[in-house]
């Protein structure tokens, strides 16, 4: 039923894209018709945002064809080509210049605003568009963006994308457009999207609010593991069937784990998210592997940081018994010390125990580094080499070694497996299991469902709070997805 029709505004055929070892898009076929709103859903890492970046010209696909409005722009793909063919994207992270005014930001995107009086014209156009989409928005085109609230910035960005100047506007991509808008404003936007579509424009809507997707879209496309797995008219989906479609592939592998009956150890961590209104809190017993699940950026990292601060006595709202080590997810920004050797990167958390006469004992440092090279098989000829000489996966192993070599009884992991190859992952999973059996506690935030299978208990986060607690035998992808995707307050 979805053969690319003559009215297709955009056609993607066999689009592939990899980032190093990670395959983000594994051959995507997609078509968007004139005058429709296409809903796009999928769990984290399904490839939605990458696909949209390819469409908007900010990323080049490795393979595949991209046809917009009848022209094959595969060869000339880029922002300019996309814009010339009327494709505009509102990116998930804000892309306004905070030091410029609203009108000046319109100018950055629309070249037509130039020459005498451009400021007035840009301001008037933005004011009119804002009035159209968001009545009573309270934004002055002369306001500097840095002074606006995050919701108003998002409104400005959306209005700017729908502005038509000298280039045609055929397709607007909205990537999580309502993430910082309140209910009323989000409804205004959805109503505008319907009006825009009725006038013959097309919209791709990405949202984790399934209610929003189902109510606004004409068709819904489900992505999983870099592929389109389902395409149906929105009426043919219900919330449940949509969730099932997102998780269906892996569901078959949901074989029952050998749920090791964990001895009820002492509770070593107890913490509550800052915004948690009810009595729920995160508890971890000694020797447990506790998973923190949910969509990316819904408060899991914040809670880990709080627990880490609590261990140093800087956070009264969490209780931690014992020393804590943190395994960072974003290696480059808060994981490795890029100028240090592998050995130094591993031992830095344990320098207190490697002292002799108040100074670092180099021999002990080398011994510890060598021991961990053996134990977790870091592939390097010399631990004295710079950490950046390692591949990403091996760097991550070194970070694990840093935590496991330390005296910490509690290890916090902030989605540490991002961009790590499968082999390394399996090795690390084994290590985590073994260490847990020896009494270490792991708090493991992960965006990959497969990793939750290694957990004894899972807390699901949404919008900064814990919304569900799943015991080992309740951990299924469907349960996690059900809890991660909000039922909209209708």
């Amino acid at each position: 039923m979805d053969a690319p029709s003559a009215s297709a505004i955009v056609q993607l055929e066999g689009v592939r894209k990899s980032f190093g070892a990670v395959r983000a898009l594994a051959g995507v076929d997609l078509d968007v018709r004139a005058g429709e709103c296409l809903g796009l859903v999928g769990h984290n890492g399904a490839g939605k945002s990458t696909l949209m970046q390819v469409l908007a010209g900010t990323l080049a696909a490795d393979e595949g064809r991209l046809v917009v409005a009848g022209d094959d722009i595969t060869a000339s793909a880029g922002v300019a080509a996309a814009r010339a063919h009327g494709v505009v994207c509102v990116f998930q992270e804000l892309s306004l210049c905070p030091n410029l005014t609203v009108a000046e930001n319109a100018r950055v995107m629309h070249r037509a605003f130039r020459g005498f009086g451009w400021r007035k014209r840009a301001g008037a156009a933005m004011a009119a568009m804002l009035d159209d989409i968001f009545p009573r928005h309270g934004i002055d085109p002369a306001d500097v963006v840095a002074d606006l609230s995050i919701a108003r910035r998002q409104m400005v960005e959306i209005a700017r994308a729908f502005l038509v100047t000298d280039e045609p506007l055929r397709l607007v991509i909205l990537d999580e457009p309502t993430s910082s808008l309140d209910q009323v404003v989000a409804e205004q936007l959805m109503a505008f999207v319907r009006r825009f579509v009725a006038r013959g424009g097309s919209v791709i809507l990405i949202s984790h609010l399934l209610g929003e997707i189902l109510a606004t879209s004409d068709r819904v496309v489900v992505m999983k593991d870099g592929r389109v797995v389902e395409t149906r008219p929105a009426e043919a989906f219900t919330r449940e069937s949509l969730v099932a479609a997102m998780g269906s592939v892996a569901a078959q592998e949901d074989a029952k784990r050998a749920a090791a009956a964990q001895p009820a150890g002492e509770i070593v961590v107890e913490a509550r998210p800052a915004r948690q209104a009810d009595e729920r809190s995160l508890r971890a017993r000694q020797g447990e592997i506790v998973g923190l699940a949910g969509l990316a950026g819904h408060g899991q990292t914040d809670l880990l940081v709080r627990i880490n601060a609590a261990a140093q006595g800087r956070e009264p709202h969490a209780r931690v018994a014992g020393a804590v080590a943190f395994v960072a997810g974003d290696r480059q920004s808060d994981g490795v010390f890029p100028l240090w050797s592998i050995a130094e990167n591993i031992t830095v958390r344990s320098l207190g125990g490697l002292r002799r006469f108040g100074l670092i004992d180099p021999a002990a440092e080398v011994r510890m580094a060598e021991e961990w090279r053996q134990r977790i098989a870091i592939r390097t000829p010399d631990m004295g080499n710079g950490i950046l000489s390692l591949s990403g996966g091996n760097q991550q192993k070194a970070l694990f070694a840093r935590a496991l070599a330390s005296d910490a009884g509690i290890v916090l992991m902030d989605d540490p497996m991002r961009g790590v190859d499968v082999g390394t992952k399996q090795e690390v999973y084994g290590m985590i299991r073994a260490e847990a059996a020896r009494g270490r506690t792991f708090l493991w935030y992960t965006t990959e469902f497969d990793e939750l299978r290694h957990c004894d208990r899972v807390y699901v986060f949404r919008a900064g709070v814990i919304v569900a607690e799943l015991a080992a035998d309740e951990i299924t992808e469907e349960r996690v997805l059900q809890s991660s995707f909000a039922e909209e307050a209708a």
Partner: protein
Amino acid sequence: MNVLMPSPRLVRAALPALSLAALLVAIWFVQPRAISYFGFNLMLNLAMPIAFATIAQLCVITVNDLDLSIGAFVSFVACVGATWLNATPLLGVAVLLGAVVVYALVGALIHLRNLPSIVVTLGMSFFWLGCSVLLLPSPGGSAPAWLAALVKVRTPLVPFAILVSAALALVVHVGLMRSAWGAILRGAGGNPVAVARAGWSLLRTKVTMFALAGFFGVLSGLSLVGLTTSADANIAIRYTLLSIAGVILGGGEFVGGRVSPVGAVLGAMTLTLAGSLLSFLRISPDWQIGAQGAILIVVLALRALVNRLERRR
């Protein structure tokens, strides 16, 4: 800055003007006779080259870089002005144009190789210093007569230096803060990714800003040599820090494309006048740099205070 802004923003925008006014009051208090046409002419003599150098620095700071070579560059221009420009004007003009091109190339290098501007421009400062020393091993030379005559023009009512500074502030304000291209140039400092995603060339913005910095650096060196009539290789070394101080004093910030040309010119004048005030107070020149630093700290502390008030609202 917009006058309709809420008050802390207004206060922050007015801070450069207020500090200049406070300084003038202090000078008037210590030495009333200095507040006259003749006094200003004398005191603000050197404001012109400093203002040009400050605007040059502002161009670089707008795109999140820092130019540590501007002092050495202004000295180099002064040396060229006192030698080649006088003896063989054509060669002199060609060298100065070439120097602006070198500035533009430095901008391109910093962007293309993603190098820290501090390192590159620090290296360039030695390059310019070396060129100056080769050109003028010992202090001397003489500025072209027309240049000396130009910068010492006696305008009616308001001293020439003030007129030039005002015109400079106005031109750069219109070009950078009001024009459509200026918005792109500042946007490249505020959110380079967004500007690139909108299809603009970041290379072009960077090259433009560095070329402009070179251009204003040339104006600074020429006005300086016109005033002093002779040059030496170290004549403007302290302009590097003065220009950075002027931009920051004028309400600019090191990152994020937040700059104010009017404020920067006022900042340059404030720093120039601070020297005069300290002389009136009979503070030895050895201490003047320290005292200028103290002024800078006070003004920045005030700004931090305004920012904090703004955040608390």
